[in-house]
């Protein structure tokens, strides 16, 4: 099996083996065989639903912490636009920037310019694309991984343009290494992320290239410091002059999931949010029911990135705050526009490598062997009760049958076929009677 890093880990000490994560996992990547949850790395798409579903908090997002590497001489925070909608009234973008500096960052990068650049790059990409359609946005790493795992035939339709945060990482290093005379390796660009999926897109990019960002910190990790700093007496936003703060609405709109709707208005464009809705739309594409659509901007979270699993504030409040910020700002201020026009002709925004499907399980075996696995699984499925109780440790009878077919499980894992299994479960999950 391929060893693949993911944006979280399961703490076995805290896992009670309750099956919540196994039942909710949309790609059926989780099994609970010996009383502890385990996941199949090549099936996991990092949607993070299991993190929120776990009642024991045994599934933990891996992020970068400020105490981590001190090898960097200059650390730059690159906050997701979502961060600016997370705080109570009275905490302005400039307070947020100041809070990040308090945390130990040397600078904060607002990637409004990069958002403008990527809007232009995607517009040109769509214009030059000959098919197949629809093209699919790659800003949400979960959507990218979903396509790689479940819709491998559609990988070429993923837009081959990097997300703004990656271009921001590249520019941060270029700019500060020039200004400060440091090498690129001495500068850290740390993304302030609304979800663990973006962390993994930095640590392990889907296209197997190297990210321009060096790590990610969850909004949850920076939130308290920002609030505390903003509430200190004398914390007036007088420092706003020396720090960049949010200047245009196109940057903030990116976090709502339909950041491309305006630039693609002349195209047949769909804005799809929520993993089950995304799956349904992709199924319809595969079934040929959705024809004549040119572009799909898809996000795993129903409210775009504002609903990420490393956010703090109520999602409706965040949406409302972002909307009022958006309404008060120009689409793109003249300074940003000038910068976009200056940089656009001289930079490349293409993905460094194409995104490929993930190798399927059982590759390396012959066609005959794989067909035999399917036949075995079908034969087993006939004998299983079809109740999908999950007590075997697989989410459905069908999944158990497939596992048995591949030799990863036994029919005796089914409680209908083994008293031992039931006895073991009783010992593990029932307290002895007084």
């Amino acid at each position, binding site marked *: 099996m391929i060893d693949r890093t993911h944006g979280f880990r399961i703490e076995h000490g805290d896992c009670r083996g309750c099956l919540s994560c196994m039942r909710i996992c949309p790609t059926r990547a989780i099994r609970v065989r010996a009383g502890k949850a385990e996941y199949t790395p090549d099936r996991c798409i990092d949607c993070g639903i299991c993190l929120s579903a776990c009642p024991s908090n045994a599934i933990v997002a891996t992020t970068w912490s400020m105490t981590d590497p001190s090898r960097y001489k200059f650390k730059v925070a690159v906050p997701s636009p979502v961060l600016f909608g997370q705080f109570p009234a009275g905490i302005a973008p400039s307070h947020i920037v100041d809070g990040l500096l308090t945390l130990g960052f040397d600078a904060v990068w607002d990637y409004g310019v990069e958002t403008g650049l990527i809007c232009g790059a995607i517009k040109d990409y769509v214009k030059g694309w000959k098919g197949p359609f629809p093209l699919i946005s790659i800003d949400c790493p979960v959507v990218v991984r979903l396509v790689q795992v479940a819709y491998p*035939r559609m990988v070429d339709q993923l837009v081959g343009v990097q997300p703004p945060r990656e271009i921001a990482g590249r520019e941060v290093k270029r700019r500060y290494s020039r200004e400060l005379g440091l090498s690129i390796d001495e500068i850290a660009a740390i993304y302030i992320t609304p979800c663990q999926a973006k962390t993994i897109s930095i640590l392990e990019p889907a296209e197997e290239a190297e990210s321009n960002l060096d790590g990610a910190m969850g909004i949850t990790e920076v939130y308290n410091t920002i609030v505390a700093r903003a509430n200190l007496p004398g914390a007036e936003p007088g420092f706003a002059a020396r720090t960049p703060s949010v200047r245009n609405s196109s940057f903030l709109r990116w976090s709502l999931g339909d950041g491309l709707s305006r630039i693609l208005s002349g195209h047949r464009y769909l804005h799809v949010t929520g993993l089950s809705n995304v799956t349904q739309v992709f199924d319809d594409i*595969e*079934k040929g*029911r959705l024809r004549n659509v040119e572009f799909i901007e898809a996000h795993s979270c129903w409210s775009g990135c504002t609903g990420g699993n490393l956010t703090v504030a109520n999602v409706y409040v965040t949406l409302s705050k972002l909307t009022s910020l958006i309404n008060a700002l120009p689409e793109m201020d003249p300074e940003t526009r000038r910068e976009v026009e200056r940089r656009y002709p001289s930079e490349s925004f293409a993905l460094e490598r194409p995104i490929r499907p993930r190798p399927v399980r059982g590759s390396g075996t012959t066609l005959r062997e794989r067909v035999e696995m399917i036949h075995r699984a079908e034969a087993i499925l006939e004998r299983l009760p079809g109740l999908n109780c999950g007590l075997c440790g697989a989410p459905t009878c069908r999944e158990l049958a497939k596992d048995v077919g591949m030799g990863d499980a036994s029919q005796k894992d089914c409680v209908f076929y083994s008293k031992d299994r039931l006895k073991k479960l009783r010992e593990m999950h029932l307290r002895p009677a007084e």
Partner: protein
Amino acid sequence: MAEVLLQRKFQVRGLDFDKAGDTSAEVKAILTDVGLDPDVVLRAGVISFEAEMNVVMYAVRATLILTLTEEALSIVVDDEGPGIPDIEMAMQEGYSTASDEMREMGFGYGMGLPNIKKNSDEFVLESQIGRGTRLCSMIELDSR
């Protein structure tokens, strides 16, 4: 004839637009499970989808049989329907007898049969007026 590794039979009903596409989705799912090359699955998907749509649009009912051997996969669709009076004409790109209603749904642009042929390594179409049509399509698998 090479040894059959796997065979599946599906029923497709005419005018069942609600279920249209389900059979080809199943074909693709099985072939993905078997671990065939995505390109082969894509071609098989186009063939089964277009054939399925032809049944839904024009025929009464049909069976679609998917057969897999070590060397090739075949898709055979046998329908009960009006038949095709002029096969040569039907094979021309852009030729269609679809109603406006069907075109509005995004079908009937006369690309179905040419598309099937383009994606097949071997393709045979036989028809009897008033009886039905039989479509045989084959894709060769790379030796692996």
